[in-house]
């Protein structure tokens, strides 16, 4: 083990570095040490490399700046580097040349060294055989695009389609909207061309009339059973799910009259009708039929405005005498579709009315529609020969994937039954690693977006396979070579890890014993936090390593009136927020001791009791926001922390300690002022409560 300390950026001015190195010597006998005024400079790096080589060290502590800076400079092959953040978390935010600041720096050094001493060597998990074939479920536009793009990148793709032909919804269209700029003519559908390319591609295998019997295994090695009367089984590395959508059941829209007469159709039915059947003289379209309605589909289905405008042109094209009414709330033609909207608007026989439909009543000859006109603010009555309901988009059920996962057969869902992900920044991170949703099963979208989405999901499917080959985690801990290792002898089959893993990494055998699938794992460490028997750990993040850090600090006795507060910070948002506070030189209490964790959900209860019995006066846990609009990168880590908090309060009670000694707070990454307030107010509060009575024991 070796230690390099940097005295640059004010670190040497604020802290007695000689004393710091002396502390290192006391903690680790014979540790090789160096000090440099600018460790990240070329000269500093030279020194550092010499130190590591001469000491033959494979573990190196660098006491300098945050691990979030100068990462490239301090990356060393074959050496585990522990960055001790004396700059952003100590010197920049505490009084220089001060006894308490010095103690804080020394404790952070102790914690870093303790961690280095307690971790194990990293040996990545690489399955014996990693399969590079990819399964695509659903042969609509998104699935076809995914298949062709994946095959074109050199991967073998198996496309499974439940019907007897490829193309899905897009394949059933009469015509397409004009290209991009919206000025031109309606186009002939091109899905069949895409389907032919897919069928002709040498790297593609298509299975029609087939459904999924089961999918088991893990990324790199999924076993897929198909149901098509032929007992087909496949082994694939990853999966793209593009099973599409179905129209909202129009019979549930009572006042829209669907089912009462063949004169009332849905968009999808009218698409078919337009191909061959006679177009009557008057057609009325009702937009948002079910969408944007709390009683039906609360969301906007995104495709229907454009689709209805397009069908209005079908009417005009097929029957130039016809008149068209369109009843809408807002016309949502985004981007260049706006120009298409303008083109439709310029047709004198197409009437657009902003309003809400009150009733649709068919009789033998016609259909009567009453509308509350929002412009005139009065009820108007219209007579038409045909009504077309722009029914919304309902995602197909991913249960049909038949995943053999302890946590269920489908993909976990976010509101409105679309599959869950961090849909803004990381749209393909479904909670089942290696299985990526694409197209309308993921979110309402139009044809162009579905194409892009198919390709995007396929990219992630390929990437996942390549990561598994290298034994690396995928986003957000991309490149992490550690994985959860279980000491099964002590496992009591309590099932907490299997239930709490957000990614379904754990299955169970017949006896209920957890079976780990490391390639499914995203390395959040929530299982480390969940295990009451403390049998789960990562090579560099375990019960022992964090306990060693907690116990390494020197706790002054109660008469010195120097409280110690342990702060667990989530490395994703709270840790960078603390760094940003450092850059802004916001002042923090020197009584805090900071331990970064993979996720707040990875904090094990035993660390809390370790800290309390070691004499810390309080424990503050700071993580990312939970809830519907969660920001936790591991979905429910922060939520679990809240739930476990209730248990912790019981622990405090049994120890006869005040409830304030444990606190949990949630911040956003930009909350650097907020985090300062949270920490300093907590320290002040604890000072009023007084020392932890276990301190002197």
């Amino acid at each position, binding site marked *: 083990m070796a230690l390099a300390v940097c005295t640059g950026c004010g670190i040497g001015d604020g802290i007695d570095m000689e004393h710091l190195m002396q502390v290192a010597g006391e903690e680790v006998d014979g540790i090789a040490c160096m000090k440099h005024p600018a460790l990240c400079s070329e000269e500093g790096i030279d020194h550092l490399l010499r130190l590591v080589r001469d000491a033959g060290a494979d573990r190196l502590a660098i006491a300098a700046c945050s691990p979030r800076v100068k990462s490239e400079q301090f990356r060393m092959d074959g050496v585990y580097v522990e960055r001790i953040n004396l700059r952003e978390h100590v010197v920049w935010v505490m009084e220089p040349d001060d006894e308490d600041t010095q103690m804080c720096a020394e404790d952070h050094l102790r914690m870093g060294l303790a961690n280095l001493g307690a971790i194990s060597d990293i040996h990545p998990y690489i399955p014996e055989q990693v399969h590079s074939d990819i399964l695509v479920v659903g042969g609509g536009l998104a699935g076809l695009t995914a298949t062709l793009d994946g095959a074109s990148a050199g991967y073998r793709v198996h496309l499974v389609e439940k019907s007897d032909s490829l193309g899905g919804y897009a394949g059933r269209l009469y015509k397409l909207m004009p290209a991009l700029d919206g000025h031109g003519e309606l186009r002939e559908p091109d899905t069949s061309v895409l389907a032919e390319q897919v069928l002709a591609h040498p790297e593609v295998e298509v299975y029609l009339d087939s459904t999924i019997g089961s999918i088991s295994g893990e990324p790199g090695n999924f076993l897929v059973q198909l149901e098509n009367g032929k007992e087909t089984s496949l082994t694939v590395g990853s999966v793209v799910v593009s099973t599409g959508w179905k129209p909202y059941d129009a019979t549930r829209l009572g006042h829209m009259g669907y089912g009462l007469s063949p004169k009332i159709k849905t968009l999808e039915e009218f698409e078919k009708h337009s191909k061959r059947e006679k177009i009557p003289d008057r057609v009325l379209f009702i937009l948002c039929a079910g969408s944007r309605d709390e009683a039906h589909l609360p*969301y906007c289905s*995104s495709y229907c405005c454009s689709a209805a405008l397009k069908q209005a042109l079908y009417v005009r094209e097929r029957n130039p005498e016809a008149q068209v009414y369109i009843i809408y709330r807002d016309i949502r033609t985004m981007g260049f579709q706006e120009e298409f909207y303008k083109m439709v608007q310029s047709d004198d026989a197409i009437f657009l009315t902003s309003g809400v439909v009150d009733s649709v009543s068919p009789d033998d000859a016609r259909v009567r529609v009453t509308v509350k006109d929002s412009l005139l603010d009065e009820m108007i009555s219209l007579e038409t020969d045909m009504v077309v309901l722009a029914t919304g988009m309902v995602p197909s059920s991913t249960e049909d994937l038949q995943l053999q996962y302890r946590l269920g057969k489908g993909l976990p869902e976010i509101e409105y039954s679309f599959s869950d992900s961090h849909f803004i920044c990381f749209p393909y991170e479904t909670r089942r690693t290696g299985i990526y949703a694409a197209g309308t099963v993921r979110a309402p979208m139009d044809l162009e977006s579905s194409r892009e989405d198919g390709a995007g999901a396929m990219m992630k499917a390929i990437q996942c396979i390549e990561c598994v080959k290298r034994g690396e985690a995928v986003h957000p801990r991309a490149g992490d070579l550690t994985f959860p290792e279980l000491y099964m002898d002590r496992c009591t089959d309590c099932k907490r890890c299997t239930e709490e893993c957000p990614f379904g990494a754990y299955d169970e055998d017949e006896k209920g014993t957890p079976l780990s699938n490391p390639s499914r794992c995203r390395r959040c460490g929530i299982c480390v936090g969940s295990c009451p028997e403390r049998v789960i750990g990562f090579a560099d993040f375990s019960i022992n390593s964090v306990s060693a850090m907690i116990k390494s600090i020197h706790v002054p006795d109660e008469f010195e009136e120097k409280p110690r507060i342990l702060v667990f910070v989530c490395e994703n948002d709270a840790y960078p927020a603390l*760094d940003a506070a450092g*850059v802004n030189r916001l002042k923090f209490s020197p009584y805090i001791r900071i331990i970064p964790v993979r996720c707040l959900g990875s904090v094990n209860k035993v660390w809390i009791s370790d800290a309390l019995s070691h004499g810390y006066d309080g424990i503050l846990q700071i993580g990312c926001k939970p809830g519907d609009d969660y920001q936790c990168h591991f979905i429910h880590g922060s939520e679990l922390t809240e739930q476990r908090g209730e248990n912790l309060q019981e622990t405090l009670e049994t120890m006869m300690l005040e409830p304030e000694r444990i606190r949990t707070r949630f911040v956003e990454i930009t909350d650097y002022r907020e985090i300062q307030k949270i920490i300093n107010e907590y320290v002040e509060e604890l000072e009023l409560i007084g020392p932890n009575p276990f301190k002197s024991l």
Partner: protein
Amino acid sequence: MDFPILIVGGGISGITAAVELAETGREVLLVEKEPYLGGNVAGFNNYFPKLCPPACGLEINFRRIRSNPLISYYTSAEVQEISGTKGEFRVTISVGARLINNRCTSCGKCTEVCPVDREGPDSYGPAKKAAYIPGGLAFPMKYTIDAEICQKEACGKCVEVCDYNAIQLDARPVEIELRAHRIIVATGWRLYDASRIENYRYAGEPDVVTNLEFEHLLATCEREHKKLTRPSDGETPKRIAFVQCAGSRDVNHLPYCSAVCCSASVKHALTLAESYPGIMAEIFYIDLRLTGRNEKLLNKAEQDDAIKLTKGKVGRIERDKNGNGLILEVEDIMAGTRRMDSFDMVVLAMGLVPNRFLPAITTNENGFYSAGQIQGIYPVASCKRPMDVASSVKDATAAALKAMHR
């Protein structure tokens, strides 16, 4: 071995393409014209519809960049020329004079002594000098000097205090020749010039701001725990108007819909309602276009007493002669009247235009890059058509795969 894949533009789309490719095992080269990665969203307060900070997702991506040796990036750099064909493009990049080099440790002493003030988004943090860093979460985490306002050798104070020999005030741009296997163009968007809509008085009225300026203002207030004040006199505004389709859906300006401005304004109004009680927001719109699950934002806004949604196009904005702020003339469609109303501040929901860098790639008549024009060059995201962040990330990931085609 293939040449690296070149990505032009280090905003959210370019970054996404870069990390997705590198983690798949491809070598990539990211070129960004600004001194920092992150593009427009790095200065944003929050994203719709989750109202969460963009810095959160950016941080994850920056970490992926930091830890992946397959990614190289140039900042303050622009592509000058592209020649050759798919598989073996030749690219000339001009790397601008970054007056602070990689030896910078981000200690911040240069900012402390810098005598020149710099205008910039307030969200860039407290120190706004010619030597600066855009906030505590910037990537790369090193200072830079705004060469246009720096007094260079005439001052030289920063050179004196820098302990790391990181400042070279006489640095010159350098040209680099590269080879690239494929090229992804992710040059992104900027706002349409607000001063061109003369009726809206952007040029002369400090309290008429663009949606991007308002975003930066909110970012500062939220991060720095500051009060929201209007530019003209520092007073807290009580009524703020949002003018939708400022430039968009207008044949005299941008004939297309910019796709993001409705959601952005509703997001702004909701942020006001949540964090700044006492401020009323009124949004003037033609259609409210919040598609997909963004609809939920609209529902929240409809139920909020501090937010009013009015269907109507704003005709003109003028300063009230009696000192009652800004007068908006609106055709209130639902009421069927022409309304004159006064507001303390007006936010123009400006439309988006694409950033372009090479005339060689064909554009459509709106100036956006068309896909599929040159073999091996892939325009993505908002330089291709107006789109929000979620769609841009999706498109960038898709383009990454196109760039991997054999």
